[in-house]
């Protein structure tokens, strides 16, 4: 038996340490360890509730917008604010644009280097002028002896794509996608002020009253994004996933628990009843039985997290979070949320399995693809296409709203109420996201977030059931202990965000738990 430690696990958001044990070439045990804590929620207590959208926005600069949005949804409820259609649509477009930045960035810039042997570019023999420039570039870097940040790296393995044509195309698209992610942020900023860390989403709606010209500018940038997703991103993922990576896809490497959770998100009506991304629960991979989400079934355990055991119970509203950095057996800053006692995977694969879009399901059936690392990439790419197409509808709807009585904000509910509480449950690129606020004396009494990577990267619970990623790592082949490529492939396929996951604890007080169930 051999032990492998990967720390820092790079090309993710945040600081992550992975420890695995390998027996007979396969992972036999895994520990997923979050190693950073900031303490943002307890800091919010006692403040003007309106600050929460701005402050929590800054929990994460990669899924930028997501926390500000979830926070505004929680505050809207607590303030009794009714966001006008214009405000809802502009929020959707601000966030949607950031997803268009986020998903391709994850594939090309955070993940692709695990799947290609980038040095194969030097062998490119084709005549495409664009690809020849890429080849020339890489050759020059090699000649100059300075290939950072593309090296050093793990040695390419049996699954690494080394076809010069394919790799050169992938590198060209890596560069193209860098431009597209910047343009997507620019597009979001048209309504958002700036990106990352928009300022436009506030309780009650948004602050940016757009002109028709701005909306049309947004539309034309959206069409460029849509074309990129349709003609480059999704085809690349399909080419790789059904081509050189098909063995990984069919083996379901990194499959995990087969339990999936989606809160749903992106309201298509002002009541929030019709959601673009659907809510649902899948247990044990039973896709024919999509269950409704029941908030009361969410519990958080801290047996293996750096906190003292809770005296008040395990619902996220009641459980205690008294830190204990020296606690025996604890190994992470991430808590262990469970749904109905089970670890749950959240994210694009969960959402797409809940929604079962025909195009993706046909692909999965045709190629006999199993849930796992490759399936996650496919679900993410397919979801991007669905979203980009849906965003065009939102642009149309927004323009229809822009008549004489165009409203973007509920100004009557701008001041904080004396008391109130609200839950903002939605979807972030990485999965289900919940913000919960309680207001007393016009101030924040408690603030709580349950974020995607907390679900995916949770540690063991008190029944010693492993978290979703830990389960997904078990059985992953590691033929070469010095080059654990499959491990980082599986970890990155979840698109981890540790800054989101581990800001939750409060090392000084235990006041987060004062929420009551049922609101």
């Amino acid at each position, binding site marked *: 038996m051999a032990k492998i430690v990967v720390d820092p696990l790079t*090309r993710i958001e945040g600081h992550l340490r992975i420890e695995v044990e390998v027996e007979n070439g396969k992972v036999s045990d895994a520990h997923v360890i979050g190693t950073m804590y900031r303490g943002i929620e*307890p800091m919010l207590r006692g403040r003007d509730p309106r600050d929460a959208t701005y402050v929590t926005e800054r929990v994460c600069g990669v899924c930028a917008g997501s926390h500000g949005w979830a926070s505004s949804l929680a505050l809207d409820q607590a303030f009794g604010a009714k966001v006008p259609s214009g405000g809802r649509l502009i929020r959707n477009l601000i966030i949607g644009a950031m997803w268009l930045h986020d998903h391709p960035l994850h594939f090309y810039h955070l993940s692709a280097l695990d799947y290609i042997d980038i040095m194969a570019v030097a062998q490119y023999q084709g005549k495409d002028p664009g690809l020849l420039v890429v080849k020339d570039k890489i050759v020059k870097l090699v000649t100059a002896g300075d290939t950072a940040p593309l090296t050093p790296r793990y040695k390419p393995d049996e699954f690494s794509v080394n076809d010069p044509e394919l790799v050169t195309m992938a590198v060209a698209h890596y560069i193209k996608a*860098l431009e597209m992610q910047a343009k997507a*942020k620019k597009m979001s900023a048209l309504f958002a002020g700036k990106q990352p860390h928009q300022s436009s989403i506030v309780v009650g709606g948004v602050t940016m009253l757009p002109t028709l010209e701005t909306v049309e500018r947004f539309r034309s940038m959206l069409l460029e994004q849509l074309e990129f997703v349709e003609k480059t991103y999704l085809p690349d993922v399909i080419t790789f996933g059904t081509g050189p990576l098909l063995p990984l896809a069919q083996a379901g490497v990194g499959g995990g628990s087969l339990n999936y959770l989606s809160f749903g998100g992106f309201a298509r009506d002002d009541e929030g009843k019709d959601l673009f991304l659907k809510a649902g629960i899948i247990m044990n991979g039973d896709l024919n039985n999509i269950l409704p989400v029941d908030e009361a079934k969410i519990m958080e355990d801290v047996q293996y997290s750096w906190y003292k055991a809770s005296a008040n119970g395990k619902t996220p509203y009641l459980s205690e979070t008294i830190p204990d950095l020296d606690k025996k057996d604890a190994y992470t800053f991430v808590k262990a949320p469970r749904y109905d006692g089970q670890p749950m995977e959240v994210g694009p694969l969960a959402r797409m399995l809940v929604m079962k879009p025909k195009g993706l399901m046909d692909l999965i059936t045709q190629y006999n693809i199993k849930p796992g690392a490759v399936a996650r990439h496919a679900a993410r790419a397919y979801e991007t296409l669905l979203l980009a197409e849906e965003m065009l509808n939102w642009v149309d709807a927004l323009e229809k709203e822009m008549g004489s009585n165009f409203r973007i904000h509920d100004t009557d509910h701008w001041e904080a109420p004396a008391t109130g509480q609200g839950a903002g449950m939605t979807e972030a690129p990485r999965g289900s996201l919940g913000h919960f606020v309680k207001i007393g004396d016009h101030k924040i009494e408690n603030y709580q977030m349950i974020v995607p990577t907390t679900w995916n990267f949770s540690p063991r619970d008190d029944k010693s059931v492993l978290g979703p990623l830990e389960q997904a790592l078990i059985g992953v082949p590691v033929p070469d202990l010095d080059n654990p490529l499959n491990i980082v492939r599986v970890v990155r396929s979840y698109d981890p965000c540790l800054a989101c996951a581990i800001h939750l604890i409060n090392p000084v007080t235990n006041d987060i738990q004062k929420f009551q169930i049922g609101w």
Partner: protein
Amino acid sequence: MGNFDLLNAKGVSRRDFMKLVGATIAAFGLPGLFAPQAANAVEQALNKPPVIWLEGMDCTGCTESTIASLNPSAAELILDMISLRYHETIMAGSGNKSEEAYQDALKDKFILVVEGSIPSKEDRYCMVGGKPFRLTLIEAAQKAQAIIAVGSCASEGAGIPGACDTGAVGVSEILKAEGISTPLINLPCCPVKPTTLIGTLIYYLTYQKVPPLDTQNRPLAYYGTLLHDNCPRRGHFENGEYLTDWNDPLQKEYCLILKGCKGPKTYTDCAQVWWNDNANFCINAGSPCSGCSEKDFYQGFSPLYSKQESFKLPGIGHVNADTVGKTIGGAAAVGVGVHLVATAASGRLKKEDHKEDM
């Protein structure tokens, strides 16, 4: 020469690049640098300097902001302008491979970029590679030729983490505590503005010295002017026209001071150089400035959406902002137009017409 091949791939000639650098420098008013000599000097100097980019208690927003640059593009930045030897979010290697890259880079004459704050109360709040981030930072800071702290978290005051109970501090506090004298440039803002970072890099590499800085170690070129003095809404401020309803097209361009704008306290070039390839900036989007470029951000500027406790209004000297707010609130209740009352508050009506104690 020859570093900027990707520009050619995009159909941009070297001459275009020179124009771009020259324009960038001219726009930022960097002293003593003018195109076209500037572009030549820059290209000579930009011999792909090694860069180590460390992330502490961060959100990766400054990295995201940096790669949001379209001119130069992110690819040009990462592959052409600098040799990015260590950056956890971008680099190929993990674990021992990334450690190897870090150790190799330490041997070179590198520039250190720091994103995120550092916990001063408890090292275990931020561990990277099994080691306290604070110690890694100290090691790299001692060996770097210069340090650029990007974003509010790494700058003096530590931004939002600075308000939390981890004892989060910026790089300057660590350097002071450890007696490290490596030159430090702070580039606060939440996140760092890419134009500011790229311009600072260009200046430093061209002159091999830090640009003129203010007392918070910020380059005067970017942090030398008060936002309020350059605000496109300044005229409305002078007229006493304050936005109270985001839905009202008539108020769309009005001053945001009653929404909590910290522009009168904030030194930044946001009004002149917008974000995301000049797409927008907070105030143009109707959002009050939060003061994120100041060391008092966030703790000193909260609550963000309430009127400043005290600020100067034209014509009436020092005014308590609550008074203005109450006046406007009360006026709205009796149906008097916002503009009229705001005008009264600004002192353009006779003082005896305005009953509040100024």
